[in-house]
């Protein structure tokens, strides 16, 4: 599992001038994410235990862990939109 994104960059340019240049240091939220992730895993474990008797046996814990993994895999995503008047660049690192 890769580490979660550490930086989100948003840049909005209008008529050649940068209107918005946002640097969101995601690594600041890592401790919060860790706590929320742990809570979600605990809740999912309890849900899995409760649903042990059911026929379908949903794997909530696996689902939550994969969701957290998905977050890490988002690193490297880049979106670049250029219109006549505006350019928007979103980068997840």
């Amino acid at each position, binding site marked *: 599992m890769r580490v979660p994104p550490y930086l989100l960059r948003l840049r909005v340019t209008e008529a050649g001038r940068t209107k918005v240049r946002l640097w969101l*240091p995601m690594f600041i939220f890592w401790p919060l994410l860790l706590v929320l992730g742990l809570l979600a895993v605990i809740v999912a474990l309890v849900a899995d235990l409760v649903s042990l008797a059911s026929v379908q046996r949903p794997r909530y814990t696996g689902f939550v862990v994969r969701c957290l993994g998905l977050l890490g*895999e988002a690193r*490297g995503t880049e979106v670049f939109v*250029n*219109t006549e008047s505006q350019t928007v660049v979103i*980068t997840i*690192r």
Partner: protein
Amino acid sequence: MNQERLRILSLLVAGKITSEEADRLLDALEPHPETPAPDEAAAKTASTAAPKFLYVKVLSAAGDNVNVKIPLSLVRAGLKLTSLIPAPAMEQINKSMAEHGIAMDFSNMKSEDVEDLITALREMEVNVDAKNGDNVRVYSA
């Protein structure tokens, strides 16, 4: 996170460099999204190696331009996630997708199918040239 990036970020947090300087330094470490698409020769060379990104490029006749670069590992992780979605939720997702014109049952997708799909993406290239001049390219590299 490699050492260079960590060092740049720690310098930024310590206030020793500005966000613009950090931006330039990080840009130097990674290719920029505005860089043009690799040419055909480069794409063919890259096709021998495992592709890492899925590119979606839209160029409209009006001059609007959209480039999206998605890590294939994200696609792989997303597809694998579908096998863990609880059945009642999956039914609702499939129903909703069918209503929007995408009649595909993701619950039948197995882990091996996902790997096959990702491997197949290596040779996939979609190139749409519309009458009105719009151009759409989807490929992996």
